[in-house]
């Protein structure tokens, strides 16, 4: 038995201990709930970011998840501390736990010193919540998956690389419109492609999108081919302009040092005219150049300077058109003349693709995936299914290679409504007037030739079905 004051202090100390335990449990619970909410929210945000393709390294993602989760846990834990019970409630809990009959609660009253109740041990405070614990475990797994799975999975899941037929039509139409507006292709070629595209957009069938997509592929191929031809022409024109510019500069240098002899000047003028006429430069440009070079007094240094200026202007225009063709990404790698490293057409130009892989940083992974897909056999583009699927040019067949082969029926076959039942037979139908149908029909027992679609024999158990079909 202890003295009254000491007893009161002991009771208050034990109540304080209980209060601390309670607060600890509250903080732990609050932190767990906060971590659950924070990790879920951070996981969802990260997932959304990955679907949107926002550049983010794995370490950054982990840091973001840890920071949001930890921050939420700390804030929720601190907020939970506000629910710590007051001292009278702790005394009541202590009294109830020790079955002290109200003496612990009355420790502050007058006369309490005379009683000196036994100081009870503070009760334990336990927090158990399988739901929160389970949720936290699930959330952690979710965050780990979101942070660590490779980016290509999210690109595939997002479905963004699978445009609709209408979107492809619109994209192609926009490209053709720009080519037409900037006169990058011959007018007739551009008009023909534009007409084809308009026809596809009108006749496109949603029930058979593959057909429309094939037609669009054809247009894109035509566009590429025309752009390639145009690029080749522009490249030859550029070479000719460069040669003419060099010749004009050389002649101008000679004329600066002294006038040429008449015969030599005439020969040089003829040679210049011949070169310009034979070069792939447009005729109008060639005549303008020649007129500028010869002038009213024949070949002169000033005239040649004027011609060089015109040549440089024409060269600049030529370069600009080549660049526009490159920007429209219609130039194949073989036609890409921009060896100065400024080409950005990574789809077609291997040099540009290599630079993209080296320089694009976080996007390199996606670009590598893209390159791998494009390089795989049978690649029809990232929007056309698996890149590694084998190219097949025959009718689609099932896994078991069981398919009926199409057969053109003979024109001499009777119409169905005029047909009459001759009898039922388990044997192969005998149609003497239509040998073609029996030769290659579904009921044929011919073995398939090598490399062709296998044919299926109608098994005896199916013959009943076929017979019922022809019953009146």
């Amino acid at each position, binding site marked *: 038995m202890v003295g009254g004051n000491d007893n009161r202090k002991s009771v208050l100390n034990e109540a304080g201990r209980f209060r601390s335990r309670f607060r600890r449990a509250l903080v732990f619970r609050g932190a767990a709930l906060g971590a659950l909410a924070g990790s879920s929210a951070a996981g969802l945000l990260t997932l959304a970011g990955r679907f949107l393709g926002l550049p983010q390294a794995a370490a950054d993602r982990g840091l973001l998840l840890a920071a949001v989760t930890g921050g939420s846990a700390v804030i929720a834990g601190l907020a939970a501390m506000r629910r710590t019970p007051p001292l*009278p409630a702790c005394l009541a*809990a202590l*009294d109830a736990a020790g079955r002290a009959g*109200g003496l612990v*609660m*009355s420790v502050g*009253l007058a006369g309490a010193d*005379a*009683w000196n109740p036994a100081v009870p041990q503070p009760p334990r*405070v336990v927090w158990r919540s399988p739901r929160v614990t389970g949720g936290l475990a699930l959330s952690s797994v979710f965050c780990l998956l979101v942070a660590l799975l490779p980016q290509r999975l999210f690109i595939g899941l997002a479905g963004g690389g699978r445009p609709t037929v209408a979107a492809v039509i619109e994209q192609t139409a926009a490209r053709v419109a720009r080519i037409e507006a900037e006169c990058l292709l011959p007018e007739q070629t551009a008009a023909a492609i534009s007409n084809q595209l308009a026809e596809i957009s009108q006749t496109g069938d949603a029930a058979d999108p593959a057909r429309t997509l094939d037609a669009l592929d054809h247009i894109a191929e035509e566009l590429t081919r025309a752009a390639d031809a145009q690029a080749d022409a522009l490249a030859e024109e550029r070479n000719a302009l460069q040669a003419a510019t060099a010749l004009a500069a050389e002649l101008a240098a000679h004329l600066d040092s002294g006038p040429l002899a008449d015969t030599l000047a005439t020969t040089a003028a003829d040679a210049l005219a011949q070169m310009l006429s034979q070069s792939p430069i447009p005729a109008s440009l060639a005549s303008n150049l020649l007129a500028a070079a010869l002038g009213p007094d024949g070949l002169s240094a000033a005239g040649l300077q004027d011609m060089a200026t015109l040549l440089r202007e024409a060269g600049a225009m030529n370069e600009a058109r080549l660049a526009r063709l490159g920007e429209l990404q219609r130039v194949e790698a073989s036609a890409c003349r921009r060896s100065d490293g400024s080409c950005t057409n990574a789809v077609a130009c291997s040099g540009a693709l290599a630079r993209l892989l080296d320089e694009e940083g976080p996007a390199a992974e996606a670009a590598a995936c893209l390159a791998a897909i494009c390089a795989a056999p049978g690649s029809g583009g990232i929007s056309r299914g698996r890149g590694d699927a084998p190219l097949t040019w025959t009718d689609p067949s099932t896994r078991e290679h069981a398919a009926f082969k199409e057969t053109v029926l003979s024109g001499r076959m009777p119409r169905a409504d005029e047909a009459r039942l001759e009898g039922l037979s388990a044997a192969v139908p005998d149609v003497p007037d239509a040998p073609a149908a029996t030769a290659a029909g579904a009921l044929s027992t011919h073995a398939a030739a090598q490399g062709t679609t296998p044919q299926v024999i109608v098994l005896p158990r199916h013959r009943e079905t076929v017979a019922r079909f022809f019953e009146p």
Partner: protein
Amino acid sequence: MQMHLLTPQEIAPASEALQQTLAQMNRMLLGREALHRLVLTGILARGHILLEGLPGLGKTALVKALSDILRLRFKRVQFTPDLMPGDILGAHILQQAASGARELVFQPGPVFCNILLADEINRASPKTQSAMLETMQERSVTLLGTTRQLPLPFFVLASQNPIELEGTYPLPEAQLDRFLFRLNVGDLPTETLVDILTGRRHGTVPEPSWTLPKETLESCFAIVDQVVLPDAVARWIARLVTATHPGAAEATPRVRTYVRYGASPRAAIALAEAARAAALLDGRPSVGFEDVRMLVEPVLNHRLILNYQARLDHVTASALSEELASALDVAGMRLPEGVEVKA
């Protein structure tokens, strides 16, 4: 008002006297220790008690033994359907005085006593049962505009048979609410029966070897009034009674399912008073949660009105009240989900 705890010296005489009373009851009536403790608690709380049990279980003997020990005036009324209020309360009768004048003289009924045993109270008509309302609550009788106080202390210890319901009138809720406890007088264990058979010829209850003086009983009543009811306990009692209502925030799901009407504020007052008495009986100057927990069932079991679903599911008010006392956190800390306080 500044509360203070009674000293051990102030508590001890009353506590010892009550323990002695309890010992006498246990000596006179075998095998009913818990019941005796509750009855004495009810007497200390100055409440009326409804004893429920089959015939022959010693209800009347208990009341008679109590009156013998407490040396209180004891009256017994066998309630029957033809019992009239005047048979209990008393009546005015015409008498001729010495002067020859005739006047109405009040003849007190059996209710003018200290302990009234209302045997088989549910056999009386509602009119007669209602006549008990004023006596139980006000401890007075009003006849012809004249109110007469009953002698103090006044207790009604009623009994009723829970199985023979034919020809009975169930007690109205207003009267049930006036009983502090409804106590179930159960069967005795075999060993106790053997003791009764071997030790008592014809089951005769022995005379008390010690009696409680009336002054001591009155001092016990005074001390009960000074037993401290801590705020936390008072709050728990209030929450308990509130939680018996199906629409209360702290009502348990089973209360919401099975209870039609919860307990009244009179139940809370009764619980607090009885808890004070229980604390004194235990020799303490303050009420603890365990005192209340022990009394929740006898105080609330006749105050909860259950619905038909409860009858179909065989759910009793006793079970519901005990579940409620277990479910309700004593400290009122509003424990968050999943947090438990374990002693």
